[in-house]
């Protein structure tokens, strides 16, 4: 790691995850009953499903569990943990294939996760579940297809679904919402495509579907949705069976689409909204992280974007370059700063911002690892990030590098 670029951050350790170092965007920490810290990771794709890493000593991570997917036409990509319960998402390549839904695991014995239940979200037009949020131990908020939901466009299949897991062995649906106009039969007009793409692959951009749904215990009546080309949405979910739109904001077009995460800063009435870069070589530049004034929820106003290195320098280094996941201030063993934002930006690495002046976010630290051996591209592709309450930073590479554990002097 001699040629990493860094400022105010240093690498404590790196685990290649037994040679399966391609990790998706599921990272969650469990404090086991014996006090160990277990970092659970969802893999980017087959053959692996998820891996548990004991990170109690961040300088010496140890793999304690690694599981396989049932078949290679699927991926897990996302997971989340509350207490000793873990939710894992299953997304299939072809609509109608199975398993497509969420599986609940009892991880009280972290070496031996025990399946508790499976909530099926398959259907003739469904690719299953891409992303989930499970922060209160009661409801799973996810981007999933549904039997009975037929989108107007095949890429718009994953809608906002809430699953009640208060009885984790018998999950039941609590609510669903989709962007008006995206379902066949909606009275609203279909949204105009932002950057139309051929349908030879359903993955990737040109989609009006949910990516992330964030719901915080301090504001249980609100869901914050990143709806890809549909932009950012705030829903009133006080009645989950009848959710209502409170506000929305969408910079796409003219920007090139793919709103990913909408994270509220609840003490400041701000939103941090990320796009996701989904194409190599800056083909979809710019993919930004936005600061949005949410003092008036029904009139969201963008006030700044986070600084990034120049596209001339990074755009053609290899792989993707631009915004993606941020540390989402979830409850649990997690840093919950509303003055600092921790993000990962594919080949621009892990970056930390001081947002005390929201009109002018400043880069205060970064770590850009070199390309890991065996990667498909010539750079590291930092794909997801988690920060524990000690401010230890965990980030993962999308293709080969596995888990990077970092210390930040911030």
């Amino acid at each position: 790691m001699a040629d990493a670029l860094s400022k105010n951050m240093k690498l404590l350790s790196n685990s290649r995850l037994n040679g399966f170092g391609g990790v998706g965007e599921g990272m969650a920490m469990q404090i086991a009953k014996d006090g160990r810290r277990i970092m659970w990771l969802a893999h980017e794709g087959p053959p692996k499903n998820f891996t548990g890493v004991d990170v109690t000593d961040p300088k010496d991570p140890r793999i304690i569990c690694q599981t396989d997917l049932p078949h290679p036409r699927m991926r897990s990509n996302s997971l989340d943990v509350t207490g000793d319960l873990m939710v894992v998402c299953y997304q299939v390549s072809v609509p109608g294939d199975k398993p497509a839904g969420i599986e609940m695991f009892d991880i009280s014995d972290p070496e031996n996760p025990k399946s508790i239940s499976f909530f099926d979200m398959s259907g003739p037009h469904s690719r299953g579940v891409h992303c989930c949020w499970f922060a209160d131990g009661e409801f799973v908020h996810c981007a999933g297809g549904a039997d009975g939901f037929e989108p107007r466009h095949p890429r718009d299949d994953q809608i906002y679904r809430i699953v009640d897991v208060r009885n984790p062995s018998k999950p039941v649906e609590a609510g669903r919402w989709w962007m008006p106009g995206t379902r066949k039969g909606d009275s609203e007009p279909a949204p105009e495509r932002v950057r139309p793409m051929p349908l030879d692959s359903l993955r990737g951009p040109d989609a009006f579907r949910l990516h992330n749904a964030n719901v915080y215990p301090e504001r249980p009546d609100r869901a914050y949705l990143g709806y890809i080309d549909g932009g950012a949405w705030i829903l009133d979910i006080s009645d989950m069976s009848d959710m209502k739109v409170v506000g929305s904001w969408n910079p796409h077009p003219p920007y090139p689409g793919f709103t990913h995460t909408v994270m509220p800063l609840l003490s400041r009435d701000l939103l941090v909204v990320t796009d996701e870069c989904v194409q190599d070589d800056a083909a979809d530049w710019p993919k930004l992280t936005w600061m949005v004034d949410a003092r008036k929820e029904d009139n969201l106003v963008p006030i700044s974007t986070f600084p990034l290195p120049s596209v001339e320098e990074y755009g053609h280094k290899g792989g993707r370059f631009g915004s993606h996941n941020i540390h989402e201030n979830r409850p649990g063993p997690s840093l919950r700063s509303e003055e600092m934002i921790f993000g990962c930006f594919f080949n621009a690495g892990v970056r930390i911002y001081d947002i005390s002046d929201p009109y002018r976010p400043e880069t205060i630290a970064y770590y850009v690892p070199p390309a890991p051996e065996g990667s498909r591209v010539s750079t590291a592709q930092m794909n997801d990030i988690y920060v524990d309450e000690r401010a230890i930073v965990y980030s993962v590479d999308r293709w080969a590098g596995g888990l990077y554990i970092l210390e930040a002097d911030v």
Partner: protein
Amino acid sequence: MIGGSVQIAFGKRRQPGGDTVALRSGHAVIVPGAPAICLNSPGWLTPPPELVMAIQTRALLRDLCRDGLAALTSGFSAAAQRATQRYLADLEGRFPVPVEPPFPLFHDADRFFAALLPMPAPKIALEAETAGGSHAEADLAFWNGRMLTLVSFGDAGQYTPRQNRARDELSARAPVPVRFHSAPLRRDAPLDDIFPPDILSWATDAALPVFGPVRLPAFQADLAKLTDLGAV
């Protein structure tokens, strides 16, 4: 912590899109034995004379305090802003404005002004070159004459190691006791959870309620008469 004092800069400090230009900033220097900083403490509000002359009622005097605090609080300190508004509303409820005029020189309603001043976005200077940086921060600060209370919204997991070191440094080296209080972020959190009880009860327990941060003209006339009579 300079020269045996605690130096607090408070209030919003930046203007939209600009550099570190002070728009409005308060400054408090606290030494052991310094009196409590209350809504009626001189100096935190500096209204122009023409505004002071226009204030004829206690209700307007309260509005002056309310507006002054709002002006000191950043629009993006939403939790502090809401908490401060609720703090003042609580005082308003407990000490309603009397029917005016006339009103006596001292009135129980003036306990409103005896309440501790919430100092928004305090930055407390540390000795130079500490491991925690140059200052410690919070969302609100109160000084009751004995202890500095720093209120922060959110749970304990919100601080980075450097911020924790700054807080430890402040605790260890401040010339006055420092108390850190974590306030819940939920909007429906009871006021008792947001502020320590002694902060909320301070005005009730004040020995003698005193008029506001500036004197009403009528009140000044009363004072003049009393002065003429040798009573003051």
